[in-house]
């Protein structure tokens, strides 16, 4: 088991390094060979500026994938549903609505945007948990409720963008999802907040391992279930909110990355966490490389690309986990 984990993690890290290099070298402007890439880094000139731009973009894609993946994994363990993802359950769209409202109202400084996004994400999470608890939903019923919430929040976001006036273009391109337009201060702030959320989730890895056995057994074995759920939920909302500021409401990475990690190492949280993080970061980078080159010179929307890959997987997993039976 340990050997399997180590070989899976080594493979994931190698893929991640390759994608990092590719992310710096590939783009519509120019494709650099690894050799040309190294030369461009050390020589003054336009190539260095291109690499620097791509480096910031790569950091954004890396942290986007990593954060969404880890928050998806933690969410799945908290609500005991492998189909959960911050996007599917409406947390991303809640955070997006909060973020857009702050932008539309012209609120400043930057931390107010984050606070608004965090509040929106937390509100969405609270609504979905309250609905699930009241109606006793755990399986597919919970997913359907989340999707409904996503539609509702996205609808309000669209109206907000429509009335934003001169910022309408920004609003729509942001809603489509991209890491291309993030400013450096946003990337730095989001990276810090995402890593903070990740550290909190990693701190509670022991409790999240025991929660595999359900809340009752975990409680009997000494896990402070309410406190862990509260803190980890807030961490998920923090990560999602900070990533919404970077890229808009990008989905499905939080579903795909934990699924890949589970196929490799089973369901032990301490093994899943690093592997999911590596798989998520790779997916973030790979998705961003694809949106750069697949459109033939025009950037494709990131949200659309991850949805095209993620939606069939959700369908497949729903059938495989017999979610219908667990309504």
């Amino acid at each position: 088991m340990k050997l399997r984990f180590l070989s899976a993690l080594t493979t994931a890290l190698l893929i991640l390094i390759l994608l990092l290099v590719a992310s710096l070298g590939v783009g519509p402007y120019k494709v650099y060979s690894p050799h040309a890439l190294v030369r461009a880094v050390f020589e003054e000139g336009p190539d260095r500026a291109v690499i620097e731009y791509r480096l910031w973009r790569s950091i954004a894609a890396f942290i986007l994938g990593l954060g969404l993946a880890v928050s998806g994994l933690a969410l799945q363990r908290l609500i005991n549903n492998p189909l959960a993802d911050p996007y599917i359950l409406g947390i991303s769209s809640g955070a997006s609505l909060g973020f857009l409202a702050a932008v539309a109202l012209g609120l400043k400084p930057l931390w107010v945007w984050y606070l608004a996004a965090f509040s929106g994400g937390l509100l969405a999470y609270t609504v979905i948990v309250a609905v699930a608890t009241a109606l006793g939903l755990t399986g597919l019923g919970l997913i359907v409720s989340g999707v409904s919430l996503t539609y509702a929040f996205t609808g309000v976001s669209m109206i907000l963008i429509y009335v934003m006036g001169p910022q309408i273009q920004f609003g729509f391109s942001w809603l489509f999802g991209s890491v291309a337009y993030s400013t450096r201060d946003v990337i730095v702030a989001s990276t810090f907040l995402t890593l903070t959320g990740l550290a909190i989730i990693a701190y509670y890895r022991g409790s999240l391992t025991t929660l595999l056995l359900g809340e009752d057994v975990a409680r009997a074995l000494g896990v402070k279930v309410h406190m862990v759920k509260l803190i980890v939920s807030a961490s998920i909302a923090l990560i999602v909110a900070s990533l919404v500021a970077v890229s808009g409401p990008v989905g499905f990475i939080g579903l795909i990355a934990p699924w890949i990690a589970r196929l490799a190492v089973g369901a032990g949280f301490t093994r899943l966490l690093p592997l999911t993080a590596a798989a998520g970061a790779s997916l973030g980078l790979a998705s961003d490389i694809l949106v750069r080159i697949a459109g033939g010179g025009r950037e494709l929307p990131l949200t659309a690309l991850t949805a095209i890959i993620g939606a069939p997987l959700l369908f497949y997993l729903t059938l495989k986990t017999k979610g219908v039976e667990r309504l």
Partner: protein
Amino acid sequence: MCRVLVENQTVTLDGKDVLRDVNLDVEGGITAIIGPNGAGKTTLLKSIAGIVAPSKGRVLVCGLEAREASRMIAYVPAYLMVDPHAKVEDVIEAYLHGVRGVDVESVLKSSGLERFRGRKFNTLSGGEHKLVLIAGAIARNPKLLLLDEPFSHLDLANQVKLAKILRGERGEGRTIIMTAHEPLHASIADRVALMNSGSIMAYGKPEDVVRRELLEKVYGVELLEITVEGGRALIPRF
């Protein structure tokens, strides 16, 4: 040995008293809680495990409030559905969190469950689930072992195997409390608590509690008493 003291305990769930003024005093050995569906057996077990808080009264486990005694307790639920990708090793590992000096491999070996290595937990039968969960719980080396319906879904061979395991654990000085649907399983216990409608109707040695007239009254059915090879069994008249 760990003493479990339940004093005047009432548990109210959704406005209904699921347990009413329950008193129980157990120290060492195996105690079986029997009774019809909805009698409150699982709720009593959960309250001892610190999962359900009493609205009145208290539960002391090894001298501590139940919620503070989790290091002494291992609890096995009647039924468990886990992540579909979870392997048997993952489930045992989840039980072992916070336990030092014990690894999953040694648990698989000592419990004779090596044949389940690498198997997905949800693909095992109900009886096999029980054996894995009980192995994980025992590996925590608890002073108090709480088992909800441990004999359900087990075939005859595994019932005998489990009885042997529980007697062995009793020999190690653990206090074991289990619930059982089938009064027959109370025969492996040292004491039996018979519950009905949230109250304990009788508590004592199996031969004093598992009696025909008492069970007929609680279950509301007619029973046949069969005596074979010096032992006796009660079966319903179908």
